[in-house]
């Protein structure tokens, strides 16, 4: 807003300014508090060692690997499905605005479902229904058991949670590709598919990447959906199959903070784990924000 600031504006400006400072400084406060509490524990060993002595010492390596595997499984499900949905909604429904409206409404509603409800759904659908029936089909005695919480079901549950993020972000990047470019491609005789593949997709790729990063960041930070679908209290081994349970940073932090046998002794581990989780999700988020800013700046006008 370009105008001078009247003296009688100052109270309002200062009041809202303080609120803004308080909001923004929360981020800094969180970071400083975690660093202060976890500085003594953060080390290379913390990153590459497994928990020791009943989780009162050692590192968080299995939890880091578990988190990475979880978001990997999640991305493999959520990114293709979300991207395909966004492409359909933006590129193939031009003649049907009402249908697009309906899809948007449903996807918004999906985004509003609490994470813990997804967790219960994952238990009922993936673990009990899909997994249970797979076990019946395959015979219980041989092979891995699917009817119990594991990496695959946790990843699928998390994919449901992050699907709306992917759809919305990819759609936004498709919207940034100017209509004229598509029309020029059609005018040259290119087919719909050729236009999408050679003209729209390359321009939308940074947006799809942003969507994937945002989804991973969101997925790495959520705990509620995986509590009953695959995360384990303590598994020293690295998960080797989709049917294995796994440790996860967020769940590890929750367990350590609320059920630790010795809260004093593990305070450092707790802070360091929280710091690690924050840095992981924060770095992903930051790169998504920067990437998005670049995509927006590149928009033709």
């Amino acid at each position, binding site marked *: 807003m370009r105008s001078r600031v009247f003296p009688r504006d100052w109270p309002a400006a200062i009041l809202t300014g303080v609120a*803004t400072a308080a909001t923004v400084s929360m981020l800094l406060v969180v970071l400083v508090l975690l660093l202060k509490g976890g500085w003594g524990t953060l080390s290379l060993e913390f990153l590459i060692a497994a928990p020791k002595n009943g989780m009162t010492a050692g590192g968080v390596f299995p939890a880091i690997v578990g988190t990475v595997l979880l978001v990997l499984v999640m991305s493999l499900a959520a990114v293709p499905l979300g991207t395909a949905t966004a492409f359909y909604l933006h590129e*193939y429904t031009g003649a049907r605005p009402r249908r697009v409206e309906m899809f948007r409404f449903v996807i918004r*509603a999906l985004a509003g479902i609490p994470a813990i409800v997804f967790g*219960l759904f994952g238990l009922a659908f993936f673990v009990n229904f899909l997994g249970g029936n797979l076990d019946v089909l395959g015979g219980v005695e041989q092979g891995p058991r699917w009817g119990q919480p594991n990496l695959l079901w946790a990843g699928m549950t998390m994919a449901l949670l992050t699907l709306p993020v992917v759809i919305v972000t990819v759609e936004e990047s498709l919207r940034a590709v100017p209509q004229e470019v598509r029309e020029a491609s059609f005018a040259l005789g290119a*087919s719909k598919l050729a236009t999408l593949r050679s003209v729209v997709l390359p321009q939308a790729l940074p947006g799809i990447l942003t969507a994937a990063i945002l989804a991973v960041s969101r997925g790495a930070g959520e705990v509620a959906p995986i509590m009953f679908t695959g995360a384990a209290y*303590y598994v020293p081994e690295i998960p080797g199959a989709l049917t294995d349970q796994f440790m996860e940073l967020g769940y590890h932090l929750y367990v350590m903070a*609320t059920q630790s046998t010795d809260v004093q002794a593990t305070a450092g581990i707790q802070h360091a784990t929280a710091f690690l989780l924050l840095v992981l999700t924060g770095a992903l988020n930051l790169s998504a924000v920067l990437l998005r800013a670049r995509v927006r700046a590149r928009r033709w006008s």
Partner: protein
Amino acid sequence: MADHPSTHDTVAKEISRPVPAAPCAHLAWRSGLRSAVERLVELGLRASAWLSGALILLVFSFVVSETLTAEESPAPLQADLAAPDHQLQSYGADALGAGARALATREAARSRDPQGEAFSWGDLAGPIWDPVRQPPHFGLLPLIVGSAKIAGIALAVGAPLGISAAIFTVVFAPRRMGELIKPLVELLAGVPTVVVGFLGLVVLAPFLQNLLGYQFRLNGFLAGVAVAVAVIPIVYTTAEDALWGVPGHLREGSLALGASRWQTTRRMLLPAAAQGIVAGVMLGLGKAIGETMIVLIISGNAPVLSLGLFAPARTMSATLATEMGTVLRGEVHYHALYALATVLFVFALAFNIGGGIALGRARGGKVQGEHR
């Protein structure tokens, strides 16, 4: 080109069409195989979209169907019969200090006649939530009061902060500063809630107790304040969008008439953006109701019916997170938890859809071409 007027016309039509609606399969030079691939891809994309859209129905129907007793849902029962010990397995980790209780519940479930026990939705009406009492009580009232109390506190703290910050960004902040504030708030939105809950436990809890001198270290007020951290970014982002959405010429007109920035804000910007701001608050409410990890860690987790701000509280979401790990599939408590999840689902959805509708209206009323 004069020899092929029809092709020329078609291409011209294709160009003038604002959004290409269908694959241009009618172009004469396309081979049959290629057009088949085109159709296949479109079909695949459409199937993906319908699958994404259908997921919400899938979630709802499975959560609801788990409230029914086992006799009524045959497929999962088969799985149980095939694996006898499977039914007695509890989900989540027993080691979570609840092992003993889970064991007791397990014994109780063994001795109980599975046919005689059934969950009915009427069980949810009642003032007591106590699943281990005999007979168990599944009254939702204390949990709903707990959720409402904590969400109310979170909004009372978070909404003014978020809206004020949005006003500052749009009205008072220099441009560069405004461009910096927004991504910072987006980063705040990305802080995992389990980290917020953890800091609430080790830092905010002792701090607030020393400051206010209340009795219980973990209580509803503390949880509400911490949940506000998760609510602020939603309120801020939506309110900021709504404020920017007010047409610039209205703002400039007001300033040109000699109104100060604050007068312009109070008399023109805020009323014009009211619907968008209300939408932000409703979306924040939906988030606060569904928020799990923060309240699970620091609300005190006591399902007591109390209106006291500083009393320990238990929300619907935290109840699911605490008790799901201790129940057996098929027992009454299990069905009651899924009924609770259904209620939470409906609550959160109502606020989110309400917020979405308000947002749609706010955007629909916006004057075109004036954004930023």
